[in-house]
């Protein structure tokens, strides 16, 4: 997944417009610290943009994962069950969390592009 082509939310999630794959950003994984548990959504679940998709637990805290867009959960990264640290090590690759079949791809246009997200992070959000 090419991070420069993804879209981003202010909650530090990325979504690849082509495949509908979702994850959290490098900034997010660094903020969370060592991730020890991921609660993945159920395959087949219908979700609306902004709803809670799952949770990501680090040693110290539990963080909610929000759906960047609306659709149906087509696939989840089951490997994260045994190796949640993949999110820390490779947040844009093997640390992908799930894939949505998008119901309204136009929603992605409202999200930030890579440049806008980079500014957000720089400004210290």
């Amino acid at each position: 997944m090419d991070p420069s082509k993804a879209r981003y939310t202010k909650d530090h999630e990325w979504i690849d417009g082509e495949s509908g794959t979702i994850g959290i950003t490098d900034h997010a994984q660094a903020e969370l610290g060592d991730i020890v548990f991921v609660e993945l959504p159920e395959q087949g679940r219908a979700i609306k943009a902004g709803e809670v998709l799952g949770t990501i637990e680090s040693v110290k805290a539990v963080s909610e994962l929000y759906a960047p867009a609306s659709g149906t959960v087509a696939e989840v990264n089951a490997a994260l069950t045994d190796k949640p640290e993949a999110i820390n090590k490779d947040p844009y690759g093997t640390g992908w969390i799930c894939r949505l079949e998008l119901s309204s791809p136009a929603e992605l246009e409202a999200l930030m592009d890579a440049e806008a997200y980079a500014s957000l992070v720089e400004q210290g959000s």
Partner: protein
Amino acid sequence: MAEDDSLLETPLYDAHVKAGARMVPFAGFRMPVQYTGIVDEHLAVRTRAGLFDVSHMGEVEVRGPRALDYLQHVTCNDVSKLVPGRAQYSALLLPNGAFVDDLLVYMLGEGDFLVVVNASNRGKDVAWMLERRPDAGVAVEDVSERFAQIAIQGPRAVEILRRVTGLDLEAMRYYHFAHGEVAGTRALVSRTGYTGEDGFELYVAADEAPDLWYALLGEGGPMGLVPAGLGARDTLRLEAKMALYGNDIDDTTTALEADLSWIVKFEKGDFVGREALARQREAGLDRKLVGFEMEGRAIGRHGYAAMLDGAPVGRVTSGTRAPFLERNIGLAYLPPALWEPGSEFQIDVRGRAEAARVVPTPFYKRPKK
């Protein structure tokens, strides 16, 4: 980014920032929660050594001809068992037997004690102690500003510290201490810690702390010594089943309920809380702090309800994924029916009942050499 200017900094603040630490507010101080990562630092302490800045802790001098009697009255452990060079884990209790704070009492000499308290309770503890001072014979003084405290913990702690001090560390037993020079700095060196590993806590003058910190990292670096933050400090102490005030013990939990009867010395004479605890001991406890392990991958965290057959029976006080043990562990106050190791119950993890099992503690015990 908005900074809270009312936060204090320890003498080692610059060192942490330079090392790339993530700083967080804790007990009124800006403290390092992690440098490279909680898991990394935790494992370093279990296999090599870690260096902690614990300068935020409070130090209270208790001196005078009536100091011993006074401490016997306000703490629950038996201070008369101490001799100069020995320390003990103890607590200030409320009249109902619950905690004002847990602490360490160091006997420096006859009528001369140092009481080390939690950073978060420092003001409260000093006020409590001053209120209970007799009219004469004891002086109680908060000397926290004078001290910095650095802890070096791990199987290689002795090896590393030995290189920078002439003190006979081999001869220093657990919970004993001595004054000496460490890397050219005068220090109180005690064989104590909050990690379950061998190690030392070093008390030095505040302005000498940075030199000592860098000297230790310089000597110990090649042996794998790394700085470790409060995040790892918490996971380490939990694996070793050491209580954390605010989580496992507070002003609603008695010393007996907290499974700390070993520091309650009924036979030493009267002390604040003795009567209530004696009555509780007589009547029997209806809850006790026990260790548990999750059966699955969910983590039972502080505040989550413990359930049995759908009914709430207790509460989790501390819980995490233990980095060294690689298991999800925690502590909870549970009723007598669940005290036996092997007892099964559930923990409500964000709406789902997750299976848990009582286990003996400590979860981790360091290997004997």
